């Protein structure tokens, strides 16, 4: 990450309007299913997570997490 970029990020985080980009790795059997049923029940939550479905959180390679941060994710959510 470029230094300049990191500084902006820090500024963002101290501001109230911080709108993070979060990448989620959801297990097909539990977290992904739970996210579906949250939808069926119409629970409302902030629209900041983008989801990658995997068959199990065991599939998540450390390289995926590093790559997500390298590509500008503010957070990585693993759910399983």
């Amino acid at each position, binding site marked *: 990450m470029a230094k300049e970029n990191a500084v902006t990020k820090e500024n963002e985080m101290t501001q109230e309007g911080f709108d993070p980009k979060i990448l989620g790795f959801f297990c097909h059997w539990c977290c992904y299913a739970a996210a579906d049923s949250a939808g069926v029940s119409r629970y409302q939550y902030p629209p900041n997570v983008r989801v990658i479905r995997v068959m199990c959180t065991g*599939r998540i390679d450390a390289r995926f997490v590093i790559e997500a941060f390298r590509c500008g994710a503010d957070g990585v959510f693993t759910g399983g």
Partner: protein
Amino acid sequence: MCTMYCPRPVVDAYNERLEITRAPHIDYAQAIPSSYYIDAKACLRVNFETCNLCAQTCTAGAIDFSQKPKNLELEVGAVVLTPGFGRVDSSVLEKFGYGKYPDVLTAFEFERLTCASGPTEGHIVRPSDNRPPRKIAFLQCIGSRDETCGNGYCSSVCCMYAIKEASVAKEHEPDLDVSIFFMDVRTQGKGFDDARKRAQEKYGINVIRARVPRVDQVDGRLALTWTTDDGKHHSGIFDMVVLSVGLESPEDAEALSKIADIKLNNYNFCSTRVDSPLSTSRDGVFVAGAFQGPKDIPESVTQASGVAAIASELLAEARNSQTVSITYPEENKALEEQEPRIGIFVCHCGVNIAGVVDVKAVRDYAASLPGVVLYEDPLYSCSQDALKGIAEKIRDNNLNRVVIAACSPRTHEPLFQETLRSVGLNPALVEMANIRDQCAWVHAQEPEAATEKAKDLVRMAAAKARLLTPLEQPTVDVTPGALVLGGGAAGMSAALSIADQGYSVTIVEKSRHLGGNLRRLQWTTDGQDARKVMEDMISSVESHPGIEVLTGSTVEAISGYVGNFTSTVSQGKKNRLINHGVTVIATGAREYKPRSYAYGESTRIVTQLELEEKLARGKSFLKNARNIVMIQCVGSRGDDMSHCSRLCCTQAVKNALKLKELKPDCRIYILYRDMRTYGFHEDAYREAREKGVIFLRYSTDKKPQVIKQARGIKVRAFDRLLGEEIEIPANLVVLSAGIAPGDNQELSKILKAPLTPEGFFLEAHAKLRPVEIAVDGVYLCGLAHGPKSLEESVAQAKAAAAKATIPLAKGKVAVAPIVSHVDQDACIGCGICESLCPFNAIRLSKVGKRKKAQTITASCKGCGICASHCPTIAISMGGFTDQAIMAQIHAFSGRQCDEG
């Protein structure tokens, strides 16, 4: 279009007369078949040869008035009758002001009022003034338990649906005051009593025990008067009255009985026997659902599966003789190998997605993504028409990758995979973006952010789609045999059915004899000799060439998966391995051993089953019996166990009638909380009252007391009518001990089969999958599932047999192609994958001089632990390759992220 132009209004039957539609219409948007039809009774063209507007306006030219009714002749090997139930005659409802006062509704109408797809979009309003009511009364037993209208039986479902509708109403309008007038609260189904308690506590629904005789109108509101069981009179004013109408036999039951040549019972339902509840009086004609007797959805579904098993037993030799198999065009491998040509379909899902997400904007955004050659926005992409359209577009545009932005792949991916197969594409070449369940539905207040999220999800899906590769669909052969755990009524019925359908069965029974709880029962509720029923069943099982019985045996371990299980059965000292394709749990339950009411202190304090055993040995012990007291809910409904044991009320009434028959001059008291003699058992309850059995209701704060004295036994109970405690010198006390779950913990662990909090096995879906469990290839029936009558156990056993036979009959089970694959050249044989795999699905074996890992496809669940830990990245996962996931991560970032 046709509905719009038709000049002829008709009452919308789907919305229970609360709305008007036109002669040509569709019942509801998701109806199957999904085409509009013309109500011939109302159509002007059909009846008077005038009009014809609809035929002219139909742009598809789909209306053809020259069609005539046709008679078809079908040759079939069996007939299944599932005509459902009929509605209570309006003359019965008129007594309660229905038809006269607009704010008196049936529960069916009220259901439509609470429904978002109903005429008021879920707003509860009074039909008289379209204003929301403040006080609603539900009247139970309308057209049920009422001999004046000829329906002496209980309809079994109304108590539950009234509570459900009342809860939904309270959810919509929290300030609403809702009262339900019950005679008895009959929520005897599995988990139903808990739901009732929750509804009462959470929503504060008033439960009033009284039968309201009539409804009057006073100043535009509705006046009710009633008498409670303490003899007091009450009255009240309500804004709306909902009649909980019962289920009747179908209108055309008599005609049907003549056509099918079957016998009906005295209420015009199909006549059946307790030991064969799904067979009519005619061979080859079977029955299921409400026509067999009023029942709810899970029981109807259970009987329906059960009836499939019985028909299959009869026709086993003709299996697969008339089925047609779907043939798919050959896979177009050349097209699949070309550069990605992606088609993206962004679904509106009616207003489900389009109401929040700007679907057209997402569609147009999709057009800008690399490799996309087609982008569309179908209204319902899963509808028959849309699927056909998608298939055509794939063909016409030579697409080789498809992205569906719609709902969840968990529910809908197979449907779209099927569409790809139908046009010669590998089913693995479709990717879904979940923009409904995980986007539109959860960000309803933020349409702009939801639209942005949908675009991101579509971009990520398209990035993955570019890298999808065709996958082979592996299948595994099925061992053509079943293992049935438990040799009681349910286990034996299931075993007989599977064996009669042509597959071998092994029964594993813990005790030394077959029979289970049936060994203790003396007579059935329809007056048959229970021991004869049992002996017939045992001899059929023992003489069946396809059934092996292992008594004194238990299962120690079960490994494998649907199609290929291996069980270790311990028979005392020796163990035996059994291979089988499917497993049926029928391990039963036991009579609860009372811990109260002085049980065990006297031989004259017994349980209902002990009474039956005593009676079977002779009636001499009744010689001096003047007073007999039965106490209900011993152990059940919060006494010790939380659940209702469902059959004790009927059993008590059955035994009370038997005692009256043997000794007419004895007085019998039944102390109860709610008499739950549901269905046709209500007849026996009424007969018992007529024969002088005294029923006294008790509440949990004034439970009866049994006092053992030096000479004799005294029972103290509170008489609500007298308002004081009475004392009964009892010669015999019979405790209606409930049904306690068996020792299911161990088996639950062996099978990884979940239990309910009460300790019974948990089904996969309470309503729609009542005999399956969370583990594929394992099925459930009888008391192991929950308390139920012999009749219900037999029906459920047949249902489990049907489900268990399906994989056996197919002979193969498909394995999802998401399994791991090891690149033999890259593998260094380190063994990390083998040590991590939770399913023992990857093993090292010698290839040439070196050890290499190999996947056991049938066991692999595709979790990918092996792939993420392989130090040489030699393992790839079908559909979830490193490259595809990396592409999704890069697409997530939105900006170009160098791949370094």
